[in-house]
């Protein structure tokens, strides 16, 4: 449980961090909260020669409103997400999700940027960002670009990030007041990754569901957007039978691995149950 040797860098600006990552090349890894990378290094599943610590980038820890969007700096900790009154009011789904990540000690260090950028299918925020249709601000040597969360995840630990690029902020379109959302996570114990989890976002008008978005955590190589399930909902009057049907449609796209959390059949079914329960809770049924 002792990592291999590495050099440690602590840049003071995003530009400096990007320059370092580009200079050092493939042997360098950025580190934010470190909760994914450090265990991998201790088991020597990852052995970067250089660690570029982003915790000197204080200007990346912010939460602010810009027009119809909320922008969250990548170095904002899960604890700061939980503590933000503005987020609690406008995007309660984020606070609800952050509260289900690990435990308070980890949330003081773990960052939202690290959670979304690492590509770990066990992380909770990626599915939530897909559900909310967030955009990631990505900076590299060539400048900055935006990548939709829904386009970002390509495989386990594989993302749209190019070498030397960093996610610097997350832009989330704020859903209208009165929207309904929930994150249901089934886990074995506090701090554990999800057996399966589902994020749902809904708008209801005139007794009908007018907008629906569903995304799943840890039941595939990447977080999964359950389009077919959400399509089932739109235009319908919400009831429990409908939620069950949507859950079944969500389960149909789940492709989990068999591991200590359970065999494939079970985890797939749980993706459906979590979807169903998230919908029922969000809709107050």
């Amino acid at each position, binding site marked *: 449980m*002792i990592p291999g040797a590495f050099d440690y860098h602590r840049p003071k600006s995003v530009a400096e961090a990007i320059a370092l990552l580009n200079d050092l090349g493939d042997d360098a890894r950025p580190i934010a909260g470190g909760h994914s990378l450090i265990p991998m290094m201790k088991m020597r599943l990852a052995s970067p020669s250089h660690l570029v610590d982003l915790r000197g980038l204080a200007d990346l820890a912010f939460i602010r409103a810009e027009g119809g969007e909320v922008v969250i700096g990548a170095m904002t900790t899960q604890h700061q997400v939980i503590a933000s009154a503005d987020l609690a009011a406008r995007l309660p789904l984020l606070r609800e999700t952050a509260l289900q990540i690990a435990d308070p000690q980890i949330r003081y260090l773990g960052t939202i940027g690290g959670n979304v950028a690492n590509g770990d299918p066990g992380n909770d925020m990626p599915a939530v960002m897909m559900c909310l249709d967030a955009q990631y601000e990505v900076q590299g040597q060539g400048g900055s670009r935006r990548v939709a969360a829904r386009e970002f995840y390509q495989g386990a630990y594989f993302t749209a990030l190019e070498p030397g690029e960093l996610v610097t902020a997350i832009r989330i379109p704020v859903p209208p007041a009165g929207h309904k959302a929930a994150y249901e996570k*089934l886990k074995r*114990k506090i701090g554990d990754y999800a057996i399966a989890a589902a994020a749902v976002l809904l708008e209801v008008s005139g007794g009908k569901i007018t907008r629906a978005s569903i995304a799943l955590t840890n039941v595939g190589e990447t977080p999964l957007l359950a389009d077919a399930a959400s399509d089932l909902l739109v235009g319908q009057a919400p009831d429990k039978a409908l939620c069950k049907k949507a859950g079944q449609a969500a389960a149909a796209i789940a492709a989990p691995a068999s591991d200590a959390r359970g065999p494939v059949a079970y985890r797939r079914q749980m993706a459906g*149950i979590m979807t169903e329960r998230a919908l029922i809770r969000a809709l107050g049924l």
Partner: protein
Amino acid sequence: MNDMTPNQKERADKLEGMGCKRKRVEDVRFVQGKGNYVDDLKLPGMVFGDFVRSPYAHARIKKIDVSKALALPGVKAVLTAAELKPLKLHYMPTLAGDVQAVLAEEKVLFQNQEVAFVVAEDRYIAADAIELVEVEYEELPVVIDPFKAMAPDAPLLREDIKDKTDGAHGKRKHHNHIFTWEVGDKSATDAVFAKAEVTVKEMISYQRVHPCPLETCAAVASMDKIKGELTLWGTFQAPHVIRTVGSLLSGIPEHKIHVIAPDIGGGFGNKVGAYPGYICAIVASIVLGQPVKWVEDRIENLSATAFARDYHMTTELAATKDGRITGMRVHVLADHGAFDACADPSKYPAGFFNIVTGSYDIPVAHLSVDGIYTNKAPGGVAYRCSFRVTEASYCIERIMDVLAQKLGMDPAELRLKNFVRPEQFPYQSALGWEYDSGDYHTAMQKALKAVGYDQLRAEQKAKREAFKRGETRELMGIGVAFFTEIVGAGPSKNCDILGIAMFDSAEIRIHPTGSIIARMGTKSQGQGHETTYAQILATELGIPAADIMIEEGNTDTAPYGLGTYGSRSTPVAGGAIAMAARKIRAKAQMIAAHLLEVSEYDLEWDIDGFRVKGAPDKFKSMKEIAWASYNSPPAGLEPGLEAVNYYDPPNMTYPFGAYICVADVDVDTGSTKIRRFYALDDCGTRINPMIIEGQVHGGLTEAFGIAMGQEIRYDETGNVVTASLMDYFLPTAVETPKWETDFTVTPSPHHPIGAKGVGESPNVGGVPCFSNAINDAFSFLGSTHIQMPHDNWRTWMAAEKLGLHG
């Protein structure tokens, strides 16, 4: 205690003796982070060892090349079997009469087996160097499923003993067979089954788990080549045995080996035996002439040092139609892994599993156990239970419920009907034990009343009907378990470890000012010995517990003892300290008589000193007597107040208890909420009720972990897939249910203070109680037995099998 005068009560309270909820004195240092553990030890010139381990479960070692590792700056030495073999230390004897590879010679037999030991100036260099040791393996077919280990064509695992037809316990039936152990009357049992009105049979598995103490195993070896003396610090539950074995193995005279067990962060059986890390640290220190530290990490602890359980128990009961049990038959397939490194008394290859008739008056029984080798880590230790007792308790308590279900009887009623009755004690069990004392009916009835058992069953009935009507997706389970432990190993007539009788010892010295140091042959790993032994002495000698220091763990100063495991400290060393105290008190009485100028027969003991009968003013306190013993002893009497006792208990003790659990199961996710858990323990005389409660809380939490999620699991190629705490379920405070504790007191008739031991009872009773609750939730649907652990997915699969998911 009730007929005391106010003055006597005040004096007794000041002693903080037996029965007092005295705060744990050791916690003063523990809660401040000032404990002194093996890894805290820093010695001049100390170097660090780390293991190269096998990635394969079964493979031939073709070649080991250590040159690159040796070339790394800071690396001092690399040991392999080739270096150990000339010293005859490439294998070490196990407590079970087998041998275990210290470093693999020609083959590796389980994943993470020790292959080479790298020693470097610091642990970071050592960790880098193990990656530079190049080992060439040729993979071999593995044996993982214990039920396939004795197939005729099963791969031969132990080439080193392939020609050995006799094991430590008789003939070996197959090249992967270790022993067969039989107890009881087979023909009489078969005859009862042949004409039984009702029989039940179930294959009940108790999965492989791991004690997983917070502190992993560790040692520091320091060889002083000038003096020819070896000092070995380590996480030893039995330091004296380690010294004896160390001497026999190394040839270093026993008086030149100093074994020291400092503070230990939990043992639970994991730290009883000897590990390759200890041997390699010693050899490296001898080779280098420098102190060598070895500390395993969590993955090594979970995957290579001793596991527990892995018992597959085919269990049968025979009974009359009205629920009277007439016989029991059990066959166990015991998966011991690659080497038989079980830590049991020598004559008991399956420990005290023959306590499997439990708390019931079963007239006839037969037990046979087959131990077998597989490509898994060795071990089979008594994880928070006396030797294989929790396996036995799980076996009988689970099959009792299966029988109750078949008879259509309430599980509590079936137990009450078959309990050993109070007047039958001392009770001879069909499988050979003599239970010392018990009052099972009283305990059970108290438990049933405390939880409102009848109302719970009524609520369950209503919920089951609601479930059938589709109104709820939750099932309610009520788990009942009644256990009888067998602890305090043990009488020398049947208990020894490597030929050393399992007595224990105390040495008490009273200083002139009346304070005390007492040294014990046991070794606390968190049990609170420094607190509780002092309480026994306080009551026995009338000296305040606060003036008594308890010392353990240093083999140079402590009297010889067999250590702490199997709840034996109180039953055995607790007896020793009481008996030694009584020797002192007898001498003190002579001194008091001399001081008071009366005959010692005219004196009576009164809380903290001796009083002349009928003359209440004539009194000498123990403090005064202690002073006198050093400056004015009676003529002809040796000065001083000291005593030693080596206590060989006449029998084991048999703690018991009644546990009840209420669980709510979500059939759609398989998750379970433990709504209530009530534990009534009878451990005889209670020394410190607060420590008992703490022990019960801790043991129940471990039982909860085992029953609800723990498993050391291997995939089909022998990879251990639960080797870190990301995968191995260790409950936190969040998952842990709230515990309700209760007690009855049935003293042991043969123990000097009537105490029986309690540390392991909650594990022994807790595991079946949780499991019975989950099984009970599904029993009305026809399910008889669901294997542990009852984690979400297995519970969901059980519901799936019953067609509950539509």
